[in-house]
């Protein structure tokens, strides 16, 4: 009964969605308040029904109802409860249901918190949002129904892919989807603005909090995916430039550009058309990401199952929304009013610089990701584009971007003085130069480029602090005044500094991996292997039994200078239900550095192959993303976003909607 209810709730959500996609927009055209108001209630109800549907599937998973095909394929009665719960979205159908759940959640939130939006804009935004929702409801109902029953219920399920039986599945996909789908709001706002033919600074202020929230989730979502891959796949790498990873990086780059250009639009009423385009692109790239991951074009851990019908359906959604949006943009954008003027050297100029480099970097990732697919489609030649390509293209574009980062917030709006700013950044530059020198002294000439990376990271960190120090008058004014000024600073200023500091932390962590050390050895019991000042002694093998797996672990005692500091137990788990096994790496954290140990095969002579890494400062890579998210949160709590935008000036209200 429960699966049928879930199925039915989803159909009802579709029916509501179809109403919401048409009626309020007709209302907005004829200025009919009653029709427009309908959007708020349908948006909330859509969320309720999708949530019911999702809850139904969750219940099927938690109660191990194997009469549902989807549960049979992806669950097992012996699995721990947390994995039964998370396996709801650890498969194609369920993950699409999570997708629409989040989509409808955002719709309901706009309905709930969008009280200060003009009525026509709100109606149009919710209308567009509902088109997207309907497309995906149809996709689920027609090609990926999670509620299909099996004629005869099997006694036991086929179990979840062991790689996914991890706490990462509880965190990474929901956060990533919150980010992906969150950009749909910016997209809907952009389309609504194009339909109304009107856009102003207030629009940017309404879009910004949604974009910011989506960006925060996406940032941490990507980082958590990266950490998960790092400890689960056993290769010790944190980013593989895998097409699926790139698919999430592209919306992040476009979204980051959007955040910055929306600032220009809000404060200076400039870059309007560009901001609209970015809003469309950010979500389009999210859709492309969904297509790449879900259509089976690529094979990876993320591809749960491939079915050509699904690929074609998502491709149709893609063409319809991206093509439609860009056509509307090409037709309507030239009619929008021109924005304000600014000199090339100014805060606006710096933000344009940021946008230019971010979008170009995004473009290179796009080319690197899609070129192999295009080449194969046209010439049948198979190639792989990997890290070397991206190191040669993406990195050179990111370096100037990072270097310019501290300058931006210190430049004045409209007309800036780059020499004055450089002067104020003297201390930060000094910090960077000292860092370069110190790194060369400590690390020698093992890498010529890496010390400059460290210097750059420190320069950006110090630059972020300089910005705060300048604004609060630290070191110039009495401490009491500084404290007062600090309290008076807008939260968004704090947010900028914190987020910039965060990306510098990530950069620092990445650069430090130049000095990571790796050893691959075969060890017998009681033998010791040394790495980066640590000695690891292999004590022997231990057997464990988990709820649905058997585990063979190798016990290692870690010593530093002869003193035991911890025990590491990397293991191999074998899952009888699927006849498959996973390698579980062991991690030992020292400060923000880690020792990483993963097992290979055991040999006939009783020795076991191990792969051992020392990863200096590696945790900074992911901690940086958390700091970026905190920065986003600070900015989101800014007063001007909380109290909402002022009513648009009467001048623009008088413009005809056409």
């Amino acid at each position, binding site marked *: 009964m429960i699966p049928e209810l879930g199925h039915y709730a989803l159909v009802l959500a579709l029916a509501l969605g179809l109403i919401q996609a048409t009626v309020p927009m007709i209302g907005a055209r004829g200025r009919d308040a009653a029709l427009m108001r309908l959007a708020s209630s349908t948006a909330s109800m859509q969320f309720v029904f999708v949530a019911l549907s999702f809850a139904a599937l969750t219940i099927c998973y938690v109660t191990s109802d194997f009469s549902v095909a989807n549960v049979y394929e992806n669950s097992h009665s012996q699995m721990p409860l947390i994995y039964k719960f998370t396996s709801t979205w650890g498969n194609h159908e369920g993950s699409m249901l999570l997708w629409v759940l989040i989509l409808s959640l955002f719709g309901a939130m706009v309905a709930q918190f969008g009280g200060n939006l003009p009525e026509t804009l709100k109606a149009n935004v919710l209308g567009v949002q509902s088109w997207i929702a309907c497309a995906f409801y149809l996709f689920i109902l027609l090609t990926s129904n999670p509620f299909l029953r099996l004629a005869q219920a099997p006694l036991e399920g086929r179990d979840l892919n062991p790689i996914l039986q991890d706490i990462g599945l509880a965190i990474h996909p929901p956060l990533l989807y919150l980010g992906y789908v969150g950009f749909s709001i910016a997209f809907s706002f952009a389309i609504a603005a194009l339909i109304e033919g009107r856009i102003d600074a207030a629009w940017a202020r309404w879009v910004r909090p949604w974009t910011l929230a989506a960006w925060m989730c996406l940032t941490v979502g990507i980082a958590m995916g990266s950490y998960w891959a790092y400890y689960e796949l056993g290769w010790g790498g944190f980013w593989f430039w895998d097409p699926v990873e790139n698919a999430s990086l592209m919306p992040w780059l476009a979204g980051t550009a959007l955040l910055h250009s929306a600032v220009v639009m809000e404060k200076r009423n400039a870059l309007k058309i560009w901001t609209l385009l970015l809003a469309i692109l950010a979500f389009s790239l999210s859709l492309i990401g969904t297509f790449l991951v879900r259509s089976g074009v690529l094979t990876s851990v993320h591809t749960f199952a491939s079915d050509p019908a699904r690929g074609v359906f998502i491709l149709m959604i893609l063409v319809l929304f991206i093509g439609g949006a860009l056509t509307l943009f090409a037709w309507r954008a030239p009619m929008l009013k021109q924005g304000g003027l600014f000199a090339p050297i100014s805060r606006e100029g710096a933000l344009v610089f940021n946008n230019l*480099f971010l979008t170009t970097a995004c*473009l290179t990732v796009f080319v690197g990701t899609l070129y192999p697919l295009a080449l194969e489609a046209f010439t049948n030649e198979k*190639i792989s584009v990997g890290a070397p390509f991206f190191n*040669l293209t993406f990195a050179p574009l990111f370096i100037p971007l990072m270097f310019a980062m501290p300058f931006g917030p210190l430049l004045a709006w409209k007309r800036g003085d780059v020499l004055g700013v450089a002067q104020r950044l003297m201390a930060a530059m000094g910090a960077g130069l000292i860092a370069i020198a110190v790194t060369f002294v400590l690390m020698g000439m093992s890498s010529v480029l890496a010390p400059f990376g460290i210097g750059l990271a420190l320069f950006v960190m110090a630059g972020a602090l300089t910005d705060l120090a300048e604004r609060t008058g630290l070191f110039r004014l009495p401490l009491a005044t500084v404290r007062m000024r600090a309290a008076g600073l807008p939260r968004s200023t704090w947010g900028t500094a914190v987020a910039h500091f965060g990306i510098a932390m990530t950069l620092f962590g990445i650069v430090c991996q130049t000095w990571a050390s790796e050893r691959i*050895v075969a060890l017998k019991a009681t033998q010791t292997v040394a790495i980066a000042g640590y000695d690891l002694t292999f004590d022997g093998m231990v057997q464990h039994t988990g709820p649905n797996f058997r585990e063979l672990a190798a016990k290692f005692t870690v010593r530093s200078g002869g003193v035991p500091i911890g025990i590491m137990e990397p293991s191999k788990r074998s899952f009888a239900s699927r006849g498959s096994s996973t390698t579980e790496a062991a991690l030992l954290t020292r400060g923000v550095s880690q020792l990483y140990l993963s097992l290979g095969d055991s040999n006939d002579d009783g020795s076991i192959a191990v792969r051992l890494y020392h990863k200096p400062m590696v945790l900074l890579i992911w901690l940086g993303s958390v700091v970026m998210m905190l920065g986003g949160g600070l900015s989101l709590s800014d007063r001007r976003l909380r109290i909402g935008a002022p009513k648009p000036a009467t001048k623009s209200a008088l413009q005809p909607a056409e």
Partner: protein
Amino acid sequence: MTRKQRRLILIGSSLGVLAIAAALVLSALRDSIVFFNSPTDIAEKHPAAGTRMRVGGLVKPGTLQRGESLQIRFDVTDGKSDIAVRYQGIVPDLFREGQGVVAEGKLDGGGIFIADTVLAKHDERYMPREVVDALKKTGRWQEGEDTVGKAK
């Protein structure tokens, strides 16, 4: 500065950055991409030794040998031709005889493929797509035995 001049500066600098990016992309595409070959491709085309490439197929049963210090040797086959592969290191969990594999590395002078990366399937239900295509070419793949786990 007039609006026109400002716009020219903006467009000029955008084109400049794009041109740099295009140059980077083109040079990187020339130097850093890796072509995929089946054992038959290698047997027929005789690619120059030292070129980076990927080779994929099935690990030929009975050819897997393990040596000292994590050396392994095995043959990759697509049913028509074989190629010997040498690798030092730890192979993925699902690497075994008779299973699909993709190796990345270079041919040495003697026609042996020296791999520095070995990829196997992520899951027992999947087969690397390149391998499927390579096997299809030699007719060793029947659509029926589709291991790409299809949810009903």
